[in-house]
């Protein structure tokens, strides 16, 4: 299976990764090879097999609805690039 230049550009946008033109042809063959490898799985007969949502045959435990976390804002914001009035500041986003 091959991957097109447009596919790579689209995935790069979705993943917010900058990919320059020089890298694209290398990625075309690298990602193409990976997809070929994954494609070999298609040879397996999966008819009548439910897709597995988790590899462990176990069931999720639930927790009681009780407050267990305390305010640790100061510790978290110590490693944030910019904060003010208790808010995290990020480059302006306008849709």
């Amino acid at each position, binding site marked *: 299976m091959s991957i097109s230049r447009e596919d790579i550009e689209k995935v790069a946008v979705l993943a917010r990764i900058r990919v320059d033109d020089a890298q694209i042809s290398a990625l075309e063959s690298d990602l193409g090879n990976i997809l070929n490898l994954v494609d070999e799985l298609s040879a397996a007969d999966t008819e009548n097999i439910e897709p597995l949502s988790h590899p462990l045959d176990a069931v999720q435990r639930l927790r009681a609805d009780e407050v267990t*976390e305390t305010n640790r804002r100061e510790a978290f914001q110590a490693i944030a690039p910019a904060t003010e009035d208790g*808010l*995290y500041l990020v480059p302006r986003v306008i849709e």
Partner: protein
Amino acid sequence: MQWDIVIGLEIHVQLATKTKIFSGSSTAFGAGPNTQASAIDLAMPGTLPVPNEQAFRYAVMFGLAVDAEIGRRSVFDHKNYFYPDLPRGSQITQMDHPIVGPGFVDVDLADGRRKRVRIHHAHLEEDAGKSLHEDYHGMTGIDLNRAGTPLIEVVTEPDMTSAEEAVGFARKLHSLVTSLGICDGDMSQGSLRFDVNISLKPKGSDTLGTRTETKNLNSFRYMEQAIAHEVERQMDILEDGGQVVQETRLYNGERDESRSMRTKEEANDYRYFPCPDLLPVVIDDAFIQSARDLLPELPDDRKARFKEQYGLNDYDAGLLSADARLAAFFEETAKHGQDAKLAANWVLGEFSAWLNAEDKTVSEAPITGLQLGQLVARIADNTVSSSGAKKVFEALWNGDSDNADAVIESQGLKQVSDTGALEKMVDDVLAEMPDQVAQYQQEQDPKKQKKMLGGFMGPLMKASKGQGNPKLFNEILVRKLGG
């Protein structure tokens, strides 16, 4: 050209749990920014989400209330998108195996029709944080207190064909989730948020048109306006021979205008994948039964009971039963007020008018059902006239007193119902007005006679310093003048 309108809704309902869906952080409203955002809510590396049992219980209660099948095996997925108020870069949600399967809600319309709206499914997911775009030196401020608040997203089939049906459904859903107690229903705080999908097709056609989605409508009024606005916009495009673009739109209720937010084709590929940190959640019969045991009286049942138990008409019963808190307030009023219909009139009249005027919810009202009930009882037993009662109501509302009887006493609003005293006043007034008495007695038309009685009421109310019981005055007058 004639068009059919096709509307489907997606509704985000914030669940009223004490803690978040995947962490033990409080969801209490009004805390300082980011003081209720734990390492899990911030999506710090190495943290492990653990689901909140109560969120599942609430979701199952909702499913039971809309006659839906409950997802016995509920699976979480990641939905990928980048936005600063979503720290993980993905939202944990449910795609193929939601907690609530197909169900339905019946909506009563103004013309008496009952419209069934099918629920496609409802799934559990986490809410995002909040972005504050103003005043941070050109930067955006992020508060993640809301991040991780449990939501159910309810998705309907495109069954609604008008704004009335869509808003009717929205109101019914609001009534359901507040009656269930699984959501506080405060739309101004975003506890319930509506996304409206709208498309048009030529009348009678089987082929659906291209739809748009108008997001985050947080009042019923804006929802109604936004639908009218979008239908108009699409109709203009189609009638000019154009094509509707599939896109997400934002509606500005204050200006009654909308703008495109993003087109769906472009970059909006969520690349769902199963959440590796969460195992499937299995809901067994015992869990469903325990949720069923918690189901309170639902609005339809309550409406039927109000008609039966209190003798209310369909309209009043519908208004009083829709909101669980208003319903409880009415029942408290009726219990202490002796006269249920009178209680209904006061709750829907004066009480609702004051709530509206001061933009308050029932739980914020400064008067209790007990207090209003005590006042209603005094109207019912003729202690106070209805105009006097309005003054008492105002005093109770303003906190001048917490007891109707005390206000009646202190403001001298007690009606004189002692018939002996009233008869004497009538005798005196009639003696001073011989001409009017003669006129009345010569009049043959009972309607005109009735009107003429009003001429005596003024002097009588004056004689009694406004405290005579008008009903009794009337009875005495008719008796004396007729005799």
